[in-house]
């Protein structure tokens, strides 16, 4: 799941300075699950903005809608009949959703209300931890299901480095060494030969925007 956190209220308020009618668009998928940009969070942010602007004697009219997913054009369609009424759009989706919204309505200012943070897991309600950096070359099969790119401070494909210190990382005693954990897990699984395999350096495909077309599909004309 994509995990985000809400921008500081002052920052959102500043982004909206000068607009008097704004549509706040929530997203019902990842950011709703991590409690930052779903229907409820849209209502709370709108209430805050409404109160803050009234206190400044400069009221803003906030519209609210939460779509199933902002990263899917078919779910944005519902907004077509609404956006013209508004001076700007505020999006509580992840960075991908915000950009897709801006792409669909290029004439409207689209403003972010959250900071997209990582791909992570849900430890319990409200507690999320990063697990994947979308490096495009997964080595979890060799590393006992522990990602060295995410969990190692240096993101080493081949480790550990000289900074491993009795299970901790050199950057902090409380930060476990990912490669120590990988070693322990592989040892328990009797698969220590995996750690000897050398993984070639990443081509850092993540420096340009990537595209995935699944087998059986092809690039189609954009609607």
């Amino acid at each position, binding site marked *: 799941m994509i995990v985000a956190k809400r921008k500081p*209220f*002052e920052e959102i308020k500043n982004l909206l300075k000068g607009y008097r009618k704004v549509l706040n668009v929530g997203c019902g998928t990842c950011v709703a699950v991590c409690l930052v940009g779903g229907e*409820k969070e849209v*209502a*709370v942010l709108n*209430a*805050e903005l*409404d*109160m*803050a602007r*009234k*206190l400044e004697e400069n*009221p803003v009219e906030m519209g609210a809608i939460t779509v199933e997913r902002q990263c899917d054009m078919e779910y944005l369609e519902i907004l077509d009949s609404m956006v013209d009424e508004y001076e700007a759009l505020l999006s509580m989706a992840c960075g991908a959703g915000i950009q897709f919204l801006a792409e669909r309505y290029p004439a409207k200012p689209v403003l972010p209300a959250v900071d997209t943070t990582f791909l992570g897991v849900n430890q319990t309600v409200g507690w999320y931890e990063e697990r994947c950096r979308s490096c495009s070359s997964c080595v979890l099969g060799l590393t006992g299901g522990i990602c060295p790119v995410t969990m190692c401070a240096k993101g080493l494909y081949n480790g550990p480095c000289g900074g491993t210190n009795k299970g901790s990382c050199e950057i902090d005693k409380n930060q476990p060494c990912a490669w120590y954990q990988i070693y322990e897990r592989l040892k328990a699984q009797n698969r220590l030969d995996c750690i000897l395999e050398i993984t070639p350096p990443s081509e850092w495909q993540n420096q340009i925007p990537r595209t995935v077309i699944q087998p059986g599909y092809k690039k189609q004309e954009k609607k």
Partner: protein
Amino acid sequence: MRLDYPSNIKIIRVPCTGKVDVMHLLGAIQKGADGVYCVGCMEGACHYNAGNLRARERVMHVQKLLEEVGIEGDRVRMYNLSSGEGPTFAAYAKEMTEHIKKLGPNPLKKWARAKNKE
């Protein structure tokens, strides 16, 4: 017991304070209420285990949100008592009323009044 408590207090009954949502508290202030307080069971005595503890977390969260907005967070409070404590309920009602009177009216009241006239 026929106890007196201030008549300005409007009671909204919920099955458990765990039902009280951030938007219930925030919405009350947004609509012009001078203050809102939650009265839950004693901590550690919730029939649903953690309803009143969740309510306290939410009250504290709303306090922070209100401070961000520019309204005194202390307009929203959490109290705990057991269901047999009628006099304590009345005492808390009095305490909250006096506390809110000290803070003065909700600055958003005029906007709420204007909306009511519409």
